């Protein structure tokens, strides 16, 4: 593009056949898909058993595994540029900050003085 001629409006036609993204294989997609189906069954099965306080944790854990499979393979993040990885993982990091601090406030309210912010109902 280093075009130094005065007639700079001439269109240089460049023909480009390049491949840009990673092309995955059908087998990988199929394997991921089957795993996702199995994990769906696992999460439903797990929900039939009461683990007490761990219910939510287990469900979110399985969902996270499923989500990371989708992101890694279906969304090609495994083969994508570092910056796209950073962007996506960064969003999860900042989201967890929203969760962490908001819930930390809720979970630790009234520790020093139980009358502080006690719900009336």
């Amino acid at each position: 593009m280093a075009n130094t001629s005065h007639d700079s409006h001439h269109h240089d036609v460049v023909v480009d056949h390049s491949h840009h993204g990673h092309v995955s294989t059908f087998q990988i997609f199929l394997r991921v898909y089957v795993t996702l189906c199995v994990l769906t069954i696992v999460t439903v099965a797990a929900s039939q058993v009461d683990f007490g306080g761990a219910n939510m944790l287990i469900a979110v854990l399985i969902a996270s595994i499923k989500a990371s499979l989708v992101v890694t393979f279906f969304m090609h993040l495994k083969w994508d540029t570092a910056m796209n990885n950073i962007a996506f993982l960064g969003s999860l990091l900042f989201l967890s900050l929203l969760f962490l601090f908001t819930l930390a406030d809720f979970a630790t309210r009234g520790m020093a003085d139980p009358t502080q912010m006690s719900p009336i109902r």
Partner: protein
Amino acid sequence: MTTHAPAHEIPTVEGRREPDYLRVTKGFMSWVTTLDHKRIGLMYLFGVTLAFIVGGIFAMLLRAHLWNPGPDGQMFSPQDYNQLFTLHGAFMVFAFIIPAIPGSIANFALPLLIGAPDVALPKLNLASFYLWLFGTVLLSYSAITNGLDTGWTFYTPWSLKSQTAVLSAGLGVFVIGFSSIFTGLNFLVTMHKMRARGMGWFQMPLFCWAIYASSVLQVLATPVLGITVALLAFEHIYHIGVFDPAEGGDPVLFQHFFWFYSHPAVYIMILPGMGIISEVVSTHSRRPLFGYKLLAFSSIAIAVISFLVWGHHMYTSGQSEFAMQAFSFLTVLVAIPTAIKMWSWVATIWGGSIALTAPMLYAIAFLVIFTIGGLTGVYLAALAIDIHLHDTYFVVAHFHAVMMGSTAIAFFAGVHHWWPKMFGRMYNEKLASIAAIVILTGFMVTFLPQFEMGSQGMPRRYATYSEQWVGYHRASTVGAMILGAGFALMVGYLLHSLIAGRKAKPNEWGGVTLDWKCPTPPNLYNFDDEPIAGKLYDYGPTLKR
């Protein structure tokens, strides 16, 4: 993309190969459908200045109202006063400060500074502008029809009970939010993918670093504002109960959500301002920025830490002691990168070749006021002190020092700095210097009394007040009028320069960044030849005596 006319039809201007972007196409439609980042920048510049004038008029009216302590002898009813301060805040925050620097200055200068022909996504850029316009129209519509009296923070449950136009204003904020997201996204992609040949990350001018940091915030934080406003609208119409205690909701959750966006938002506002000051200070002192890398990292550090401090708006809300402690600790940490920036600017000026041009005077006004704003921020970060100062005029004065006295003044410093590049014309420098001094004076007269009042316990958002504060309030009102005069003068000479200003030199300030290496005003695609980035801030020839 716009297609070029064949070369032989192009009217040539002396010394240029191509017509500049202002003249390359003509007519109203060529502007409103343009994909050129510079023209979009100018449309933003025009738009945000109008929003600034509207917000400024609200400010002067509310200051005039506070001349007398009331309730007798005041200009407006308390309800009208509440609407005035709300609309002043909403216009200034959402329609002016947040889009001002990214929308106008960065849109114009960022691609030039990194040697790119345009932003990466020109259509999205234009869409951002129209989203901003639509949101601002919605805000204006709310102001005209039913007003808005919730405060710009929309705190529930008052915003649910208020009879004013909360819905349309909320929709306006939602839409402007998306404008802001797309602007930030666009700049991030532009900086990642469009830098000139030879420009590594640490050859990027510091303005770009600042925009980078604030764009990260725009992309990450603004969606949370979007969902918060959407939930507020549902709450308003259907009483879904998420924020309404009467339906089981917790108003403090609204505050968490709101400030998760709105605290980073104040850095969305100030970071680009800091970037402008970096460029102006360097160019007009003929010195490379002192401690470049530390400055660049401090922008990123501010952006990251700013996500973790939103709870300092809620020290008195009843959030847990643990949360308060964490938020307070993280808040004081922000002071460190901020102090680094301050010292770096001072050290850049030290030993420079200092031209007291208009942009430099605005930059010095910024440095003076930002010092005040930054230091008073430390008061508010300290838990014990903030309990007393929270929701008083001290807070009002502090954030006006940062928002108005720093961000807005940095914006105007940028406008003055790139004005010759934008229009190829110069304003009257003498009038510009006078305006800068008037604005600095006006700021001090307006807000120093407010720090005093606030320390004494004068609560903010009060339509009436006790006799003991009459003197302070009157001084503040006088200051606001001085500020108004200063800005009026500025708008006057800037408009005048468009018609009768002298022709600007190709490189009016002797700048060495890439923006000064393209024709003045730039071509449609900015540069005559593909720019190649050399050493950054290389005032080399002038350094060797």
